[in-house]
């Protein structure tokens, strides 16, 4: 079509009425002229009129063709059919509510899930040229990662030329005082280049200058937008304020723009100034991020870091000789494999729910279509083409799906809002999840796709193949298609139900895993000692001692303990342990505990003793080891009974970053407590008395006599009596801590469980619909049978057998689906086979029962059929 005609066609849309009138006039004139000529040829006026019409051809058809030729007929039709579709929805509100509701659920869940996938996996990171942002780290073994020491970082920065900026960060938390209550806030100490790496400027004020991370610089701080709003009420004069962090006033120099940094845990950024003590090569504490120069590739950066490692070989300690340096894009590191897999599976599951929702709506449309086949036949008889009817039916389903899509967006927005807290915990801070243009475009695409899927099938079915058949009314073909749809729904639901059951079994197994501790009636919280008030390890040790005493004496408290790491919490810090007789260090996780720890958590001492009150600062240094470490020592040295052995152990300093390798005596072996997430073997752990190696960040663990939450005020009071300026953070019962550790498994389980429940409900609805329609259709047949002596129970069982047949075929197909997904599920399951017979059996049986229940309602209606009335009504 030429441009000229296209323009003319669009114009014709607006001149429709006038053009129609003109055409009418032309046709009349044409007929008159023809008639006149025919009369001139000697025909009677009657015959002349007939002849004229005959020669002209089918008038209406030619008018139609005229309209087709002059304009975009489909637009006209679309508008008309949409109006008609809306009107027919209004006429049948029951159908409209059910169909739109089902679609809204299906589309809404998918849109919400998409916004999550989009935020976490698809969208580029919310920084300028995010592909250039990388993380650089020590890899002791391929695939593992280790923090970086100060001198290593400074060498990298000096030698690496491919980075526009390279920065180091260390997390901190501090008491923010000077407002009302002291609050604990999180922050990051970063080198001055940090914001250049992320290419983020300040919204107010500025970020750090290169001098500000040098020794002697005045203390300054940059706030996140959220922190500015939360703690300072969005004070526009914030740049003149000097909030007090851990007792020291910090000049606010800038506020970051809202966005990504608001979702980060950190709220305050201060310059990382290396003290002389921190300038070592053996204390690994820094996380390093860099921004590559434009044009520099990842491979080039890796190559250069390899060269730098080789250049630094001479100054590298023996135990680090094997370490390599790895570089990876930040985007790849933020979403771990597990999260990626969970998201993908959940997205797959929710897509299946949508499929079932589609099937249900298609089913409803088919049932409606069966009732409309006469209308269609009449339209055909009146001259509507097949394409035109198909167009009408598709437009009607489009109207339905667009309404469903709009409702779905509302559902999605509710879902996203409801899940906001869980999302912010599970997703990296860079993930911006919400309804934006991309999500809306996705919603529109889904609605259109669903319209095609839902509309196409019933449309083809509803088009009368042979006119006479439809006018007489026959719906045998409909029933077959609808049965096929229900079978498909049962199959897909079975896949979801089995998946959910397997995940719940996996969760159950995880919860049964021996944690090695007593978790009932235990509450935990964290305390950070500000360095201005507790500058020395001795001061800190005094605090622990009095805190343990006061806590134990507090009302409602049974036992209390202090440690640096909660049970079930992975321990990041590792140290070397040297035992006499071997050269190589054994890598151990380093955990500090006070005398109450093992008793409070019910961890049994297997050999020797635990940590006691006598192991104070200044007393001979001791260490208690777990079974895993004892086994490791037995492996390496052949020593069967480690108690009484001497060893050398790296002990971190209190404040300065560095390690003192001290002589220690191994005094006891405890039975292991679980450290990492289940499914992995316990790492070797060295438990060191907190009093001998104090640390400013600790966790309080309190066993209570009754409900642990009720004792929290008493615990706060006990701590306040020692130091009124200490904020308590992270209050959580041990059960909650455990729940958090399992959340990687419990969340997918609940999510897919919810999807499965919706799927089953929809499948049952579909089954009910088909059977109930069939019963209505067969009333007459049932009536005759009953008149001939069939009993109600015969009718009932006939219908239920019918239902059962559909369910069985669906289950077989569903099983095939379950088999096909074995490999995908395997990675998510803990000690459950993806083909666990129990789970599959339960899924099949429950699907069958639910299906029969759905069938029972129409079946019992059929059994109550009164032969006399039925036969009289329809005979």
């Amino acid at each position, binding site marked *: 079509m030429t441009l000229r005609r296209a323009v003319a066609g669009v114009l014709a849309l607006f001149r429709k009425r006038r053009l129609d009138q003109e055409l009418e006039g032309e046709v009349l004139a044409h007929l008159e002229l023809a008639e006149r000529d025919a009369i001139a040829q000697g025909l009677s006026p009657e015959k002349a009129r007939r002849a004229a019409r005959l020669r002209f051809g089918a008038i209406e058809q030619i008018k139609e063709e005229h309209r087709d030729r*002059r304009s975009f007929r489909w637009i006209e039709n679309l508008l008309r059919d949409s109006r008609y579709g809306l009107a027919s929805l209004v006429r049948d509100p029951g159908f409209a509510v059910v169909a739109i509701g089902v679609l809204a659920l299906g589309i809404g869940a998918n849109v919400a899930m998409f916004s999550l996938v989009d935020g976490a996996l698809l969208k580029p990171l919310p920084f300028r040229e995010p592909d250039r942002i990388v993380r650089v780290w020590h890899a002791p073994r391929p695939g593992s990662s280790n923090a970086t020491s100060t001198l290593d970082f400074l060498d990298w920065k000096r030698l690496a030329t491919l980075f526009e900026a390279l920065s180091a960060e260390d997390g901190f938390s501090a008491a923010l005082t000077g407002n009302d209550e002291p609050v604990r806030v999180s922050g990051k100490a970063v080198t001055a280049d940090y914001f250049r790496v992320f290419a983020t400027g300040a919204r107010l004020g500025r970020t750090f200058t290169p001098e500000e991370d040098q020794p002697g610089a005045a203390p300054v701080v940059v706030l996140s937008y959220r922190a500015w709003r939360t703690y300072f009420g969005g004070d526009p004069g914030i740049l003149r304020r000097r909030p007090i962090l851990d007792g020291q006033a910090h000049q606010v120099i800038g506020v970051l723009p809202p966005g990504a940094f608001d979702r980060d845990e950190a709220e305050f950024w201060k310059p990382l100034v290396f003290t002389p003590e921190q300038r070592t090569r053996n204390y690994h504490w820094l996380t390093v991020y860099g921004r590559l120069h434009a044009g520099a590739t990842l491979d080039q950066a890796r190559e250069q870091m390899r060269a730098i490692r080789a250049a630094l070989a001479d100054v590298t300690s023996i135990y680090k000789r094997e370490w390599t340096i790895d570089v990876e894009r930040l985007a790849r590191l933020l979403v771990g494999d597990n999260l990626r897999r969970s998201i993908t599976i959940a997205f797959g599951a929710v897509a299946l729910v949508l499929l079932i929702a589609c099937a249900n709506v298609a089913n409803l449309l088919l049932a409606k279509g069966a009732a409309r086949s006469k209308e269609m036949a009449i339209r055909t008889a009146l001259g509507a083409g097949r394409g035109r009817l198909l167009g009408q039916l598709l437009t009607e389903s489009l109207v339905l799906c667009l309404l469903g899509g709009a409702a779905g967006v509302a559902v999605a927005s509710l879902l996203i809002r409801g899940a906001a807290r869980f999302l912010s915990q599970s997703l990296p801070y860079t993930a911006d999840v919400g309804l934006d243009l991309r999500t809306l475009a996705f919603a529109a695409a889904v609605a259109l796709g669903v319209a095609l899927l839902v509309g196409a099938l019933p449309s083809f079915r509803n088009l009368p193949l042979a006119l006479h058949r439809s006018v007489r009314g026959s719906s045998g073909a409909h029933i077959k298609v609808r049965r096929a749809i229900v079978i498909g729904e049962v199959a897909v639901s079975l896949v979801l139900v089995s998946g959910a059951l397997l995940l719940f079994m996996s969760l159950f197994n995880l919860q049964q895993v021996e944690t090695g501790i007593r978790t009932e009636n235990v509450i935990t919280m964290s305390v950070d000692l500000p360095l201005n008030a507790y500058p020395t390890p001795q001061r800190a040790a005094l605090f622990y001692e009095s805190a343990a005493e006061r806590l134990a004496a507090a009302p409602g408290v049974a036992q209390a303990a202090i440690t640096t790491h909660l049970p079930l919490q992975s321990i990041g810090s590792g140290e070397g342990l040297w035992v006499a007789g071997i050269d190589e260090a054994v890598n151990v996780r380093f955990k500090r505990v006070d005398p109450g720890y093992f008793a409070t958590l019910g961890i049994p001492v297997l050999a020797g003793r635990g940590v006691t009150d006598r192991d104070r600062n200044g007393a001979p240094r001791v260490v208690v080891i777990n079974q895993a470490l004892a086994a490791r020592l037995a492996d390496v040295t052949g020593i069967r009974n480690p108690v009484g052995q001497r060893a050398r152990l790296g002990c971190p300093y209190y404040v300065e970053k560095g390690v003192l390798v001290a002589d220690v005596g191994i005094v006891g072996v405890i039975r292991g407590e679980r450290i990492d997430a289940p499914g992995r073997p316990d790492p070797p752990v060295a438990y060191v008395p907190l009093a001998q190696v104090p640390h400013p960040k600790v966790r309080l663990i309190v066993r209570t006599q009754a409900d642990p939450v009720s004792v929290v005020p008493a615990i706060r009071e006990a701590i306040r009596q020692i130091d009124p300026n200490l904020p308590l953070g992270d209050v959580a019962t041990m059960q909650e801590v455990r729940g958090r550790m399992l959340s990687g498994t419990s969340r997918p389980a609940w999510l897919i469980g919810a999807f499965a429940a919706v799927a089953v409900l929809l499948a049952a609805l579909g089954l009910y619909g088909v059977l109930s329609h069939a019963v209505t259709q067969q009333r007459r047949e049932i009536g005759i049978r009953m008149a001939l002596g069939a009993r109600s129970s015969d009718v009932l069982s006939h219908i239920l057998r019918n239902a059962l047949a559909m369910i069985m075929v669906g289950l077989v197909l569903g099983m095939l689906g379950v088999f096909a997904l074995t490999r995908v599920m395997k990675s998510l399951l803990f000690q459950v086979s993806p083909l666990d017979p129990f789970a599959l059996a339960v899924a099949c049986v429950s699907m069958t029962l639910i299906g029969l229940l759905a069938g029972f309602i129409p079946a019992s209606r059929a059994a109550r059929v009164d032969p006399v009335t039925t036969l009289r009504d329809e005979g």
Partner: protein
Amino acid sequence: MSKDYSEVPYGTLDLLILKTLDTMGKLHGYAIARRIEQVSGDTLQLSQGSVHPALIRLEQEGWIRTDWGISETNRKVKFYSLTKAGRRQLRVAVANWEQATALVARFLEASS
């Protein structure tokens, strides 16, 4: 199909209309249809009405122009005439047609 009548070959109605207007000048729809029938010696099975959809298309292409006039029965009707572009189009269409028929003719000779 009857031996004596043939349907308008596909796509040639446009050509017939253009040629008619070229030869006869300004005509209304009925006259165009009649003229085509007469020239074909009434061997063409043409629904007279089908010229109207063809005319609207030709008009939209800009090949013919419409003027309002009065018919022999005293009715206001459209009179159609060729535009410059229409004349050009006619030459192209005639050339195409001759090329196509020549090809078919050659083909039929070669095969017989």
